[in-house]
């Protein structure tokens, strides 16, 4: 017998006590509803992202270029996804046209957009669609500058899950990379970007 058939057989034997007529829906699940998003959530999002020791900059579309330039200071080699909107893209950015991993390791920072932001947890979600780059692009460089529009902020995790498309690769980011593995003392900055700057526009 194949391992598959044997394991499925063992599962069915183990579940002899479950009535044959029972369906999954018969096991009732009562869960909290997603909370509707209000404009206070933008403020909450900014606060909670900052709690993780990320830098949050609130700005209008008009003053975005100034803040963007400031966020990219000290980044001599900046990576940008090839499909990053042109109005965001600094002239000297290196476009990610399938750079090798070794090449990625030579850039100093990366600039992307995001799919959405979650207020309650201060989380940015990338679904690696246009402007967000492939997964490695926001991982290997040491600084990640991420532009999030205020209309992309949702209230909570349930609202985020409802909006996201699971067939896309997803990266949920809550602050810079961190560890608490030594005496449970939190340290920001291990393998992922050690600096995370969020420009919250709108």
């Amino acid at each position, binding site marked *: 017998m194949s391992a598959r058939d044997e394991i499925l057989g063992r599962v069915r034997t183990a579940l002899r006590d479950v009535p044959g007529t029972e369906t999954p829906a018969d096991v009732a699940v009562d869960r909290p509803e997603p909370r509707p998003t209000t404009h206070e959530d933008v403020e909450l999002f900014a606060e909670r992202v900052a709690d993780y020791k990320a830098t949050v900059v609130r700005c209008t579309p008009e003053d975005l270029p100034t803040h963007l330039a400031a966020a990219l200071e000290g980044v001599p080699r900046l990576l940008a996804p090839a499909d990053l909107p042109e109005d965001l893209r600094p002239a000297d950015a290196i476009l990610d046209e399938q750079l090798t991993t070794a090449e990625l390791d030579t850039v100093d920072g990366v600039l992307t957009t995001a799919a959405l932001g979650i207020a309650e947890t201060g989380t940015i979600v990338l679904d690696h669609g246009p402007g967000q780059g492939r997964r*490695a692009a926001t991982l290997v460089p040491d600084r990640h500058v991420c532009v999030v529009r205020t209309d992309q902020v949702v209230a909570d995790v349930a609202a985020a899950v409802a909006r996201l498309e699971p067939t896309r690769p997803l*990266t949920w980011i*809550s602050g810079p990379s961190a560890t608490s593995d030594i005496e449970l003392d939190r340290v920001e900055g291990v393998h992922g970007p050690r600096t995370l700057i969020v420009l919250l526009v709108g």
Partner: protein
Amino acid sequence: MSATFLGTPAFPTAARAALADTQLRRNLAHATGTIRAKRAAVVGEVDEWERLRLAGAALKDRTLRHLDTYLVQLEESLTRAGATVHWARDAAEANRIVVDIARVHGTDEVVKVKSMATAEIGLNEALEAAGIHAWETDLAELIVQLGEDLPSHILVPAIHRNRSEVREIFLREMGRHGKAAPRDLTDTPAELAAAARAHLREKFLRAKVAVSGANFAVAETGTLAVVESEGNGRMCLTLPEVLVSVVGIEKLVPTWADLDVFLQLLPRSSTGERMNPYTSMWTGVTPGDGPQEVHVVLLDNGRTDVLADEVGRQALRCIRCSACLNVCPVYERTGGHSYGSVYPGPIGAILTPMLRGVGHDTQLDSLPYASSLCGACFEVCPVRIDIPEVLVHLRTKVVDAHRGEPKVQNLAMKAASWALSDARRTAAAEKVSGAVGRVLRGTKRRAPGGRGVLGALPGPAAAWSDARDVPVPAPESFRAWWARTDGGRRGNGGAK
């Protein structure tokens, strides 16, 4: 290969050694105290926490009660998304599958994301035996691996080490396995983390094959999720060409929308954060992004035995947050190694014996007793596993498995049964006990409340009295008092 560390003695013996280690107790008290406070703060922020817990438990029950349906659905979803699905009855079969995949790609190393399932099956040892180095990339796992040590906590396997011990291990070992630690390394956690970053980066950049577990596997979509903090998970899940994920069959959730409940429960219970720094989700292969060859190994290794136990089944709801370890008064004092398993603490005390079976191994049979049944573990469990209930259930199974064996306790119980089943014999026993009580009434040792207690008993009873106060027998039994005073109506109604 198994979930148990070879050669660990039964819990009471292992715990005695751990209790004598003051450094260990200091490290553990500090770490568990810190994490308990963090968890309590972020759980307190969620108004509907109890409703979330109930939802988490119900979703897992739904999955487990229809696990065959969901496993078949997951297999279809994964296959449709371009992943290759393997099934492994036990540890040896799972290890063989991973070794074979690594060999096909001609590599002599793999990078690993922290994974309880691969620790349980002893994958690293199996890979080493096949000449393939398995590099652990989680900071705590790296500390354990470089220190040739054993993990002692689900979330923070090196919780028993303090910063100066970590520094010594890094200075001594890193150079033997790759990039050495800087010679002027101090013991500040930030510097230690930076040393790990530098040491592991070359391994991430060159590895062809990565091995992971998964926190969740969505049957409906074939999506796998890994929840982490450091970015080592993202490195492993993204950079290598080939990704193998070993997933216990209890890791399933039915639908994509169900993930929401668990993504709220897990980080708050585990690291005491509103959300962990990184969560990666992937569904098979994404052209042009991440590994282009994706394998998923669905692992049984005793899980169907747990499923077959109607009381114990709830242990399969576990999402490996480790909140139960952090609140457990026994874990806090004895540490993880005493449990002799990759699953320590309260959850380990029920999961390990059920995965491996009770009644055939002294060490496994000792685990359900490694608890005071205080219930703190149940209180914090995000999926409401009634660990005390399962502990008591397993104690019954252990006793049943050893019924009739010539043990001191069994003999004592037999003697008690003989004496108590006959009024005259009971009266005779009471006379003896009353006489002993009168002789010993002047004993100096007192329990709280004033009752006299004895120290260690001699002979085979020593094992029992070792950790318990033996009360001095009453000078007069209740029945003797009743006969003497006609139930208090005659003479001096007071006790003798």
